[in-house]
């Protein structure tokens, strides 16, 4: 196992901690609560990955991209939060939970990548 990989793993754990702190802070303070916080973390993570991919070489993409930002952003929580909204009859909310981060995340990544 390469040394970079050993650095990426604890950073991934740290990314998860950042996400949990952000979710907990956003749960009560953001409109829409936890799904808004998850979406924000995901879009910010995609933007940061755009910068890393534009500026950094392979080790940076592995350590910061695969480690920190991979751990910080999440697909599973995104899907479960959308499912929860859909199951409780909030179809429009479910669509927003899916579509907004999808579009904003792609734009944020592309813009940051172009900037870098």
């Amino acid at each position: 196992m390469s040394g970079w990989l050993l650095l990426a793993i604890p950073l991934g754990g740290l990314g998860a901690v950042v996400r949990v702190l952000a979710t907990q802070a956003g749960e009560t303070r953001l409109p829409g609560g936890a799904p808004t916080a998850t979406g924000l973390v995901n879009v910010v993570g995609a933007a940061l990955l755009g910068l890393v991919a534009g500026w950094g070489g392979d080790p940076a993409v592995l350590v910061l991209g695969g480690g920190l930002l991979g751990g910080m952003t999440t697909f599973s929580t995104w899907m479960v939060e959308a499912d929860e909204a859909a199951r409780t009859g909030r179809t429009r909310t479910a669509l927003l939970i899916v579509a907004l981060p999808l579009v904003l995340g792609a734009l944020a990544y592309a813009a940051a990548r172009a900037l870098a």
Partner: protein
Amino acid sequence: MSVRAPDAADAGPGRHVLLATLVGGMAGTALRLGVAEAVPALWATLAVNLAGALLLGVLYERLREHRLGRSGAWSALGPGLCGALTTFSALQLEAVDLARDGSWKGALLYLAASLCLGLPAAALGRRLGRAGA
């Protein structure tokens, strides 16, 4: 009540929650990077994302009390393991880079496959979790 009890949500997550998230997040990251070493990029991300959505769906139901109580077990396995096993940033990188390379169709197909399989995976996980509870 004359004295207002401190609100747990205002106090932020406890140290045991953050430690559990850190440990679970490290395990999830190690798994994701391990799969990425073994499987070509798009397939690796798709595989960990779908597996993580399914597993989180199961845990969401099975660990319901733990989740509502923000226990260490839920923090380690849910936001920690499943959260870090799956990734949104790599999904966007791979999709946008496909589009940048001229394969718009590939990018859209990849995103559509992730969502059209990811949402049912989460829903199936929840159904399995409820059935086994």
